[in-house]
């Protein structure tokens, strides 16, 4: 099983690394990081904060864009080009294909994250002159990466269901809903109607709550979540990822070609 998954993963990694969108997105992220150097100079002595905020945002955006634009094609391209006709009749489970694709794209995003983070840390180091704040920043990037691993599975799920355009739209929608969980919570708390409250509560728990992975705001000020909180974040990611994987497996196994 390990070899089969690895074979799919290596192939998915190679394919996604060849996608031209990847490098356009990387350039865009580096542009945001670079622009922080200029904007920092007109920020009323807030240069360090601007550079860190922009850098973390750029790295996160890079991850999201790769998932949305490259991830949406992961399964669909294979179906459309019929390369799956070569692969699926081989002794490989569809679940292994999903895991392989997830691992492959996850590796691609990891590589891009490391690359952009290296440039980001160099700039922060040169501007700040000390490496003291690197720990919290690296933690924020790592937790953001965990979020992106979850979103890859979302993207694969939609890619197995529909065209790349719609898969991208749905993935973006999940991302936006996931980061608007505070709005749902507010509605739940303030809504007097029991039926509506129950319905919104259901939505709140069903949709992934992605805001918990956003520790970027706090690390700028050196505020790092407690270890217990981080563990719960990881547990949530793993559990939700398993749910998504099961859903993707069921959908993909039912799919005929």
């Amino acid at each position, binding site marked *: 099983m390990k070899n089969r998954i690895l*074979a*799919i993963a290596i192939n998915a990694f190679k394919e996604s690394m060849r996608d031209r969108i990847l490098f356009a997105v990387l350039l865009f992220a580096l542009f945001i990081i670079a622009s922080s150097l200029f904007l920092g100079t007109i920020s009323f002595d807030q240069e360090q904060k601007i550079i860190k905020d922009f850098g973390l945002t750029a790295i996160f955006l890079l991850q999201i864009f790769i998932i949305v634009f490259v991830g949406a094609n992961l399964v669909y391209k294979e179906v459309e080009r019929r*390369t799956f*006709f*070569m692969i699926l009749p081989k*002794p490989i489970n569809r679940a292994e294909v999903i895991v392989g694709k997830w691992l492959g794209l996850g590796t691609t995003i990891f590589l891009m994250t490391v690359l952009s983070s290296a440039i980001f840390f160099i700039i922060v180091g040169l501007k700040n002159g000390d490496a003291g704040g690197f720990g919290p920043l690296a933690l924020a990037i790592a937790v953001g990466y965990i979020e992106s691993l979850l979103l890859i599975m979302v993207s694969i799920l939609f890619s197995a269901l529909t065209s790349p355009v719609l898969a991208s739209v749905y993935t973006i929608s999940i991302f936006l809903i996931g980061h608007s969980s505070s709005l749902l919570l507010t509605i739940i708390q303030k809504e007097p109607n029991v039926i509506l409250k129950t319905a919104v509560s259901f939505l709140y728990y069903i949709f992934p709550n992605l805001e918990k992975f956003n520790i970027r705001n706090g690390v700028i000020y050196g505020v790092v979540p407690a270890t217990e909180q981080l563990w719960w974040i990881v547990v949530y990611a793993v559990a939700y990822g398993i749910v998504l994987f099961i859903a993707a497996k069921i959908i993909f196994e039912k799919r*005929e070609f």
Partner: protein
Amino acid sequence: MAVIELRDVTKKFSGIDAPVVNGLTLAVEKGHVFGFLGPNGAGKTTTMKMLVGLARPTSGSVSVLGGMPQERNTREKIGFMPENSAFYLYLSGKEFLSFVADIFGLDAGIKNRRIADLLRDVNLEQAGDIQIRKYSKGMGQRLGLAQALINDPEVLFLDEPLDGLDPLGRAEAKEILMKLKNAGKTIFFNSHVLSDVEDICDAVGIIDKGRLIKYGTVQNVRGNHPDLEDAFVNIIKEARRYEK
């Protein structure tokens, strides 16, 4: 002993009233080469997809080597070459075969030897390191055949294996198929090139509009017609006239 069995297999797609495959029953003996013939849209490819696990029958049963095509054990022993094989174009021929071999879990030594042998057998030895996107259609077909053989399968499913090949390529492909037949492999293939079917097949089945209308040895199916192609055309016409 039948290694491929279809029993009353029907396949319907949602939104289409008429079944694409309708009550198909046939069996292929071990070591036989079976040609599955039919006009375009008759249900040949759909049948083949059900045999290799890409699709499931709406009703009836499909059995390959005593097991269902969805089972991993079964798929370890079969090879499949789809029609108009599609590849990862940025890979070279060797890299693609290596990828397929990895899915079968072949050891590195065995894998490399097999890849070298297969590339030589399909006459792609010189093109092994070239990216597939630079291959001609004939080269692609040959690579498709090679990947179907990577695991030394007991049963081979080939969808239009001779399509796009020039006469020399066809002759070489037929030679490979005869070699495989002599080695005791069972081969199930679709083809439009009926002269080649006549040369290598032990049995043929003719399908039209999802129904098996003729099935038997090449001689039985050809009957009194001068060749298989003539028999094929007349059998189809007869079946359609009878239907009306």
